[in-house]
């Protein structure tokens, strides 16, 4: 059967600078990843990986990124991700690192993993909560996790994660 098989790599952007979160955008991230692949695997690696390379999903509040590439070259991509050192956007350089969470064959599997991961993150936030209102907010969003409405919920609740 003729079908192009893709791999979707789910990563998280970790940085110390809180301003970095606000300027995560898909073009800057795509350029940073391509640059890392070029440095590690050279021209051949860059050409292989950029056949079907896009940033499919980006969540600036939680720093979650979903990248797509071909199944044949996902190993090149995954082995070059640790070498991403900084993001450049609007003439500013922010040091950061990418943390790979999950590699899946479809967007749906990555989404399911992301829901579970966000649930554990919310639980951890719940433990560190100081305010009673925040606690209730988080408990409410935990109870209403589901496949369709998770992404909007996690976007609202993770704001305090971004400001911590």
């Amino acid at each position, binding site marked *: 059967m003729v079908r192009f098989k893709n791999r979707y790599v789910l990563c998280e952007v970790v*940085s110390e600078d809180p301003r970095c979160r606000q300027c995560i955008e898909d073009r800057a991230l795509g350029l940073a990843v391509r640059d890392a692949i070029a440095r590690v695997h050279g021209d051949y690696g860059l050409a292989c990986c950029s056949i079907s390379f896009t940033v499919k999903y980006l969540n600036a509040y939680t720093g979650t990124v979903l990248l797509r590439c071909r199944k044949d070259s996902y190993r090149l991509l995954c082995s070059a991700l640790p070498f991403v*050192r900084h993001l450049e956007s609007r003439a500013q350089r922010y040091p950061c690192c990418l*943390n*790979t969470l999950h590699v899946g064959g479809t967007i749906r599997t990555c989404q399911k993993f992301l829901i579970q991961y966000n649930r554990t993150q919310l639980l*951890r936030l719940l433990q560190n909560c100081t305010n009673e209102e925040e606690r209730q907010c988080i408990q409410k969003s935990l109870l209403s996790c589901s496949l369709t409405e998770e992404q909007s919920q996690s976007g609202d609740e993770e704001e305090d994660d971004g400001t911590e």
Partner: protein
Amino acid sequence: QNSFTVCFSVGYSAVALNHVIDFKEKKQEIVKPTSPSELFPSLPIVQGTSKRIKVLTRLTLIVSDPSHCNLLRSTSANIRLYDIIAVFPKTEKLFHIACTTLDVDLVCINVTEKLPFYFRRPPVNMAIDRGIYFELLYTPAIKDSTMRRYTISNAISLMQICKGKNIVISSAAERPLELRGPYDVANLGLLFGLSEGEAKAAVSTNCRAAMLHGETRKSACGVVYTVKKPRKVEEEETAVPACKKAKTQA
């Protein structure tokens, strides 16, 4: 201290703090390791499980002369306080001695410059038999391009001799942003020539085995780890006599 918080959030369950002793200077005393409770008031919990993170202490000796090895044989009390002992040999003779006779857990492989000696099969095989692990660092590779070339060439030459067994990949991170998650480090292992299963083992099972080797060294005999299993067997036994009783009564 920030690096530790990043570790915890990324999913590591045990961290080792490294003290480096360089023998080129005269009269180095082995310092008592700072106990982990001095650094954190309370250890955070590992993400995903409910256990606390283990913090171990580790000593690295940079040896460039056979007389430095005498320190390991001395019964200095401070050495016993460290959980893991690693040695960083600079010459071929020292590498041979470290693999065959020295009482260490890890042998560090230099990644920042071209190795002055080639690996040979006999000492490497003896080290594997004794349960000693070879350690590769990955943080220089992230920082600098020439270091990356040396790291990869040294790592691949090691792989060709030892076939990917007994490898531990660790970071010498000084800042929290130089640390990478376990999945990423396993992917780096692929770059070094490991197969996928070996790369994952290099991050997880080999590290645990090195830790247990350190404990063995401290206690001078073997270590047996017991895990609590739910006691189903007892329940069945007590159920059977009850049935028998019922039959006899009926």
